[in-house]
């Protein structure tokens, strides 16, 4: 089971996988690349990962959600260069009831953002780039670091 993919994500296949569980309430979260962030125009971005650890963390997150709630979870994260409008992450959850399907879906995407070693480098319309730091106040690395590797 691989959670990271350099190919475009296919949410339909994730839906098919959890629908096979015969559960009645299906929730999903899709993260789409936006054309702006922290007030700047984004033109494209690059996701990189610590692959083996990221796969292990994704597997743990899915297993923990399926242990915490009676749900089936499918998860995928795209890696590499993404364009505006591309799908970056997909979580699909099937539960017997909507309470647990919503709770598990939300919990999984929060855990992905907090625990999976994936990094995002944004390129802006002025040609500068920056690593995104969700723990920083602005959500992005300081502009002064914008040309470190460009």
């Amino acid at each position, binding site marked *: 089971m691989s959670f990271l993919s350099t190919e475009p994500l296919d949410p339909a296949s994730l839906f098919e996988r959890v629908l096979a569980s015969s559960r009645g309430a299906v929730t999903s979260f899709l993260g789409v690349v936006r054309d702006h962030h922290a007030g700047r125009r984004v033109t494209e971005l690059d996701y990189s990962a610590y692959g083996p650890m990221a796969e292990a963390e994704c597997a743990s997150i899915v297993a923990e959600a399926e242990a915490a709630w009676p749900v089936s979870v499918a998860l995928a994260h795209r890696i590499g260069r993404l364009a505006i409008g591309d799908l970056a992450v997909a979580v699909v959850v099937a539960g017997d009831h909507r309470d647990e399907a919503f709770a598990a879906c939300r919990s999984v995407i929060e855990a992905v953002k907090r625990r999976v*070693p994936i990094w*995002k480098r944004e390129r802006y319309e002025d040609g500068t780039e920056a690593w995104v*730091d969700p723990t920083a106040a602005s959500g992005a690395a300081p502009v002064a670091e914008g040309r470190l590797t460009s």
Partner: protein
Amino acid sequence: MLLFARYADLLGLATADLPIEAALSVNAVIDYLRGLPGGEHLPAVPVVAVNHRQVRGDHRLAPGDEVALLPPMAGG
């Protein structure tokens, strides 16, 4: 050991060989990296993983451990 993303940029390295005295604990690894050029920009308590699991600074290292320095995660 492995460096990623912004930390790899700061030190100009994606991997680093650790001298024996730095390979004892996670804190010793961080102290060593901080002494390298660019290492002064590392945060006080960077996140470190050993064998794909986050560990604390007092974690003792064993031969063959895969040590990785992890910048703030930004997936999703």
